[in-house]
Structures are given as structure tokens and as C-alpha cells.
């Protein structure tokens, strides 16, 4: 069995401009949504209380919301989580209360829930998460720092291993992925939590792989074959690695799909971020990074060491 029966190198580079324009548009759209809608940050970043409770019978969410508002919780979010009997409640940090007091929100919410629908069974508590405002701020800062460290680390490594042109294009291509993932989370207002952040960074490292594999081929082709123009070399490199690209990403995606199906709500957004990252990773590392390398002016001379004539002579 062989999926990819490619006779000639596919002229990817002829359409380089088109790919770059497509990327630019998606990128700008993502930036636009991020700027206008922002991210729906989880309470890990914003601070607040999150509770997961389980009822014997599906409760009336509207009623729960009303009761909570009546008991003095500002802007509580009440939604189903996984099944209609499981309810997720988010209470933002109340302004002006000190940290010690807000730590008791969990107990107050449970007291409030017990009042809903007299006679009905009180819910059982499955999970409480309370995050103070200070912790949230630090997590957001640490996340940004982690992203920065990944970008710098990968660029340094690629610059050392290949050339600065490759490093720059690979990082641009993959940061564009990161922005697009964030754009999706912003557009659909999916919850951006710590595991999602981990997924985004893992995907960043993973899709740089893709560029590395292509670049490896580019270097090899430059060294081995003379007389090919730069676009031809890039086309050849991409064509000869495309089957591996698709099979590898397909395999990883099988695992991620399995997480989407069996992982339950706790892993849902994590797997979703990975899915978007993997799909755009194929596209960007191949069809964005390579044209960028070309625009930056990569050429054969950068890889082939000119032979140095020995000056000394033995007489």
C-alpha cells in the first residue's frame, strides 16, 4: 500500500504568493477576533471560583442562576458540563473582598444551591476550584514567559543547526499557527485554560518538527544536486517529505481524536487546541515556512563550503 504516488515534484513555490496571502488573511482575521472579542479565559487566569456539582435529576439551570444572583453572587455562570445532570458554576471574584473571604465562596454556593427547588435533592459536590486574583495574574505572566522561552529556544537551535533564515521563517510560520489557534478560541469563545496553554506550546514545538524535516531535505538537496533553482529545490524537498508529513500528523491526530471522543469534557478543549494546531501546523510549516525561506533569499552557496586551495606547498 502506498498512498502517495507522485511522479514529478509538485510546483508548490509557483503558488507561494497565494499561500502567503491566504495565511495573512487568516492571521489578520485571528488577530481581529482576538482584539475585538478577546479570549474566554478560565478562572485559573482570571481568579474566581469554579464548581462542578452533580444532581440526581437534570436541574433547571435558569432557577439556579436566579437563586445565586439572589444570594448576592455577581454574574454567576451556570452551564451543563458533560451531561444534563452535571452542572458547572463559575463565580467571578467579587471586588473588594479579601482573599481569605473569597475562599469561602464554595461553601456559600453549596448553601445557595441547597435552597433551589425545595424538596429536590441537593447536589453532590464533584469539584471546587478557587483561584485568588494574585495567582491568576502570575499564571498569565508565566504563560507568556513560557511562550517567549519556547520561541527564543527554538530560534537559537534552528539558527545553530541550519541558518538564521530557516530559524526566522520556521518561527514566523509557527507563531502564525499559535495566533490562529487563539483566534479560533476567541471566535468560538471556547474556554482558554491552563491545559489549553500547554497544548498550544506543545503544538508549537511539534509543528516546528515539520519545518525541520523539510529544511533538512532542503539542505540535503542543495548539497547533492547542482543546477536546481531555489524554488525547484524547495519543491523537491516538500514533495519528497509530503507522505511522511501526512502520515505522521495523521497518526498524531488519531491519538488526539481518540482524546476528543473518549477524554470527556476535562480533555475536550485540550484536544481541540491540538487538532487545530496539527491541521494548521501541516499547512504553515510546509506552505508558509518554505516560501518565507525563499523570500529571505536562501541559496545553494550558504550550504556548500567552497573548496579552499591549499596555499602551502611541499617542495
Amino acid at each position, binding site marked *: 500500500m502506498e498512498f502517495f504516488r507522485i511522479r514529478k515534484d509538485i510546483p508548490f513555490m509557483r503558488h507561494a504568493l497565494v499561500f502567503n496571502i491566504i495565511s495573512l488573511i487568516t492571521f489578520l482575521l485571528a488577530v481581529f477576533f482576538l482584539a475585538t472579542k478577546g479570549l474566554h479565559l478560565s478562572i485559573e487566569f482570571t481568579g474566581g471560583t469554579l464548581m462542578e456539582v452533580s444532581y440526581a435529576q437534570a436541574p433547571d439551570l435558569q432557577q439556579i442562576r436566579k437563586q445565586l444572583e439572589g444570594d448576592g453572587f455577581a454574574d454567576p455562570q451556570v452551564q451543563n458540563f458533560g451531561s444534563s445532570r452535571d452542572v458547572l458554576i463559575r463565580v467571578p471574584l467579587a471586588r473588594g473582598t479579601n482573599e481569605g473571604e473569597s475562599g469561602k465562596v464554595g461553601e456559600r454556593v453549596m448553601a445557595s444551591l441547597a435552597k433551589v427547588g425545595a424538596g429536590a435533592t441537593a447536589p453532590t459536590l464533584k469539584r471546587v476550584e478557587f483561584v485568588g486574583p494574585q495567582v491568576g495574574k502570575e499564571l498569565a505572566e508565566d504563560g507568556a514567559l513560557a511562550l517567549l522561552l519556547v520561541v527564543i529556544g527554538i530560534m537559537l537551535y534552528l539558527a545553530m543547526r541550519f541558518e538564521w533564515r530557516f530559524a526566522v521563517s520556521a518561527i514566523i510560520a509557527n507563531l502564525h499557527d499559535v495566533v490562529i489557534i487563539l483566534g479560533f478560541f476567541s471566535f468560538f469563545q471556547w474556554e482558554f485554560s491552563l491545559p489549553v496553554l500547554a497544548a498550544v506550546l506543545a503544538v508549537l514545538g511539534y509543528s516546528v518538527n515539520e519545518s525541520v524535516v523539510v529544511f533538512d531535505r532542503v539542505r540535503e538537496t542543495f548539497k547533492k544536486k547542482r543546477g536546481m533553482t531555489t524554488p525547484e529545490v524547495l519543491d523537491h524537498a516538500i514533495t519528497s517529505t509530503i507522505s511522511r508529513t501526512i502520515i505522521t500528523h495523521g497518526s498524531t491526530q488519531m491519538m488526539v481524536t481518540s*482524546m476528543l471522543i473518549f477524554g470527556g469534557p476535562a480533555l475536550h478543549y485540550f484536544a481541540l487546541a491540538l487538532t487545530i494546531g496539527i491541521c494548521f501546523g501541516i499547512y504553515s510549516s510546509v506552505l508558509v515556512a518554505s516560501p518565507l525561506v525563499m523570500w529571505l533569499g536562501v541559496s545553494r552557496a550558504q550550504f556548500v563550503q567552497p573548496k579552499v586551495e591549499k596555499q602551502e606547498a611541499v617542495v
Partner: protein
Amino acid sequence: MNRYPIWKNATVLIALVLGFLYTLPNFFGEVPAVQVASVKATHKVDARLMTQVESALKAASIAPQGLSLDLNSLRVRLADTDTQLKARDAIERALNPVPAEAAYSVALNLVSNSPNWLTGIRALPMYLGLDLRGGVHFLLQVDMKGALTKRLDSVAADLRTLLRDKNIRHAGIARSGQTVQVQFRDAEMREKAKQLIAGSQPELLLAETLTGADFTLVATLNPQSIKTFQDDALKQNIATLNKRINELAVAEPVIQQQGADRIVVQLPGVQDVARAKDLIGRTATLEVRLVEQASVAGSDAPVGTDLIPERRRDGSINMVAVRKLVALTGDRFNGAQATFDENQRPAVAVQLDAAGGRIMRDVTREHLKKMMAIILIEKGRPEAISVATIQGEFGNRFQITGMFSPEETNTLAILIRSGAVAAPMDIIEERVIGPSLGADNIAKGFDSTKWGFIAISVFMIGYYLLFGVVSVFALSANVLFLIALLSLLQATLTLPGIAAIALTLGMAIDANVLINERVREELRAGNSPQASITAGYERAWATILDSNITTLIAGIALLIFGSGPVRGFAVVHCLGILTSIFSSVVVSRALINLIYGHRRKLTSVSIGQIWKPGV
């Protein structure tokens, strides 16, 4: 020829055997157990306790499956949950005859059912995080600013006493923010005071300023003493928390410092958050009283005294009659450390604040050669932790000596510190995970990994035939190594950690795809099968290394900056990348060599159809 030298094959084989051994404990499951730990620092978990527990079980005719003693707890393995409950009650009765004065916590726990020889080589099952086993998690912020303010208040009081004693007139001493300001009418007085303070209070930094007509001396704590003070405050709070949490009878509590001023408390299996919070918030109190009668035989207290139990070194209880009048309370104590006196005998050095020092001076002057007791009151029950003779007149620094061992002075210092008021703490992060949710998370994480693995295996074998089988074997070896490593390191496995196992496996197959594609390519170019295998592995190696290093960079960044769930993810991710390099390159090559390497005339390999353009 594709053959590995013997040492390489041996390495692979040994790695596989070790991987299998250390993965093994995860399959044995857990058995019910009763765990005994000491609640009071005066009680130790030792071999004597073990015989005590054994005889208690024998008396209740319960046959334990095994007893194991470690640094701070004793675990008794039992056949089923019924006997577990019975054994708990029997041990509880034997060790804590008076429930209100429990000296040991007797908790229900689950311990690994793996055979002793496995435990002997330190093969333990993976350590599950709270999100997988259920429990509560608190992050506490120690209010260092508040504690420092309190410390400076006592510095101000100290200075007041000092200046009065030396007859240096000042125009007022007050704490302002994180400084103490002393006002003087003239520069001469200030200079005198400065000399004096610099001589007696080395931890203060002094600066001179002019406020209006007043000559001011501004005193601040120097950075070194602030650091020492904060470290002590944190250690003291952790010690106090340890004692309180022992009362909850939690099997494996985690109480750790995080950063400069935070403490993490994790209580697996605890659902009663309100009680846990109540315990964490409570502080013990300390009192110093004069002893009227060092030993009272009956249970009647002489007039004007209270009877306080004192635990002697041999374990017996002695009743001490102390005066009802409290000479000093815990908030006058600034610290206590184990140290040595001038004769190099173990001693406990105690520091009081200025007011406490003044009281102490008066008391000791009037009651020379009499006895003084330091009493720790926990949960309303007092216990005399030190009864000693007053040997001289002393002030805010004194030493308690006796026939102590260094270990005993340490214990006593901790006891005194736990009674002194610690820096206040706030809960800034809280997580409660129900036990059913934990089990649910394990099942979901496991299912995701299982089905993903099956899907990849089916595809790889279908697409690459025998080479696919080898790839799947390498991937299984990767799972084995990863789980063995996690078990060996006892790294905490969380749900994001399980997700990382799945993701790492999905990514690890990349290396084998790269190799297989390269081998196919070489075959397509018309090379012989043996040469193709060699070239395929060699050429793929550089690419595999590059791609894994970039992934590893991301993993390490997460490890450095991640906390909580992200850290759990990062640890597994990084370890997985390392094991995958070994398994996908070395293990798979060893297997391929074993299958094809010895054949001299190899005409074809089973790697699926090789399509050649133009044929």
C-alpha cells in the same frame, strides 16, 4: 550486514526487562491498609509502636497481611475493607485509650499490593495526583508583611526599654510602615542612642534624618535578618500545619513550601473541606507559669493551682501543679531554636519580645531557684512541655538546658515555636476533587490512550506490514519505559499527565514513520534491502534528533514556567520525548536487525508496496 554488537542488544534487553519490572507494580492494584502516624512530636513511630500494634491486632484476632515501617508512619496491610475497619478500631483503642488525647492518627489508606521483592527494589506504582484520586488542595499565602510589622512593633518596644534603661531621653518611638522611627531633641542624644542601639541590636540598619525640629533615627531590619525571619516564619507555619493535619488522619498529606512565601497543602481522600480549613486556620497557644509542686500524686490540685500533665522521657505521665496566674503567653515569644550551651550540652534558646523580657526579668528575680513550666495548649488541652529550675535572672533571651539529646531539643524548640503565634495565612487557591470524578478521569484518560494506540497500530501494520509491526513494538516499548520511569521517579501523574502520555505516543510514531519512509525511498532508488535499511536508519537519525529537540525545548519551557496541571503535563511530555528517541531508533533497529540482519541474500523486505514512478 545489519547486526548489532552484543552489548547493544544486551542494553536493549536489559532496558526492556527493567521497564517491565518497574511497570509491574501498577498492575497489582491496591489493598486496604491502616496507617499509623504520630500526631504529637513527643511520640515517635518506631519498632516499639510496631510491637504494640501487633499485639493489639492479635488481641482482636485480626491477622494482618504485613506491617511496614518507614520514617514517619506504620502501615498495616489487610485482606479486605471489613477487616480494615475492624483493625482500625482495634489499633485506635490500643494507641489512643482516651480519644480526646489522641497521640497517634490512625487512618484508612490503600497501599500497593505488589509483592515485597518488587517493593524491595523500589518498584512502586505511579503516584496519582489529586485530580485522579480525589481530595483537597490548598495554596496558602503567608502574610509576611503582617508578620514583619508585628516584628517591628516588638523592635519598637525593645528600643523603648533599652533607651529607658540607659537613661537616654527621646521624644517618641513609633513604627511607621516597615521602619521604626525614634525622635530626639538634639543631635548629641541621637548619636548616643545610635551607638547604643548599633551595639545591642545588630539586626537593625540605622539612618539619621531631620523631621521638622526633631532629630530622627530611622531603624529598619537589615535584609539578612528579614530573610532569616521570613524563612523561620514559613518553617514554623509548615511545622504547625503538619501537626494540625495529622489530626485529620489523612494517609499521605503533602505540605510543601512553594516560592518564598507560599505553602501547598494537599490532602488526598479528604472531602470535608470545612473541617480541613478550620484546622488549618487554628493556632495553639503557649503559657509560662510558675510551678507550685513539681509532682502531685493524687488528682486533687492544691489551692490556687492547676494540674497539668507532663510527659516524662520514659513515657510516664507526671502531674505538675502550676499557679493559676499566667506569667507569659505565646504572643510574647519571638522564636526558639535547638542549640548548645557554653558547656556544649544540647539546649533550647528562646527569644521573647521586649515586654516579655521585662516580665521574665521580674519573675526570675523574685523566684530564683524555683521551677517554671512552659505549657502548650492544643484543642483546649494543656501539656507541660518543659519544667525547669530558674537558675538566674534573665531577660528576653534565655536557654532551657537539661539532660537533653540534640533530637529532644529540636522537638522542644518545634513545640515552643508551634505555640508562638505564626505569621497569618490566607487561602489563595483551593481545589476539591470528588473521588468518583478522580476514578472517572483515570478511566477517560486510559480509554483515550488505549483507543488512540489501537488506531495507530492498525494503521501502521496495514501500511508498513512487518516494519509496521516493529514500529508498534517500539511504541509499546516506549509506553513501558515511560510508565516505568514515572513509577521509578514517583512523579505525580495527573489527568494532563495522562493526556501527555497519549500525545507523546502520537508524536513518537513520527520517528518510525520517518525511518520507514526513508527505507522505502532507498528501495525505490534501487538500493539493496540491507543497504536500504542501514541508510534509512542513518539518514532518518539526524532529522529525528532535530525534531525531538525542538519538541523538547517546548517541553522544558513548560516545565520551568508551568505550575499545577501544566507541570504535570510537562514532566510526562519531556520524559516521553526522551524515551521515544531510544525506543523508536534503538529498540526498533535491534528488532529489524534480529529479523533481517543475519540473512546474507535478502531480496525483499516487508515494508509494504514500493511504488516506482514510471514503471
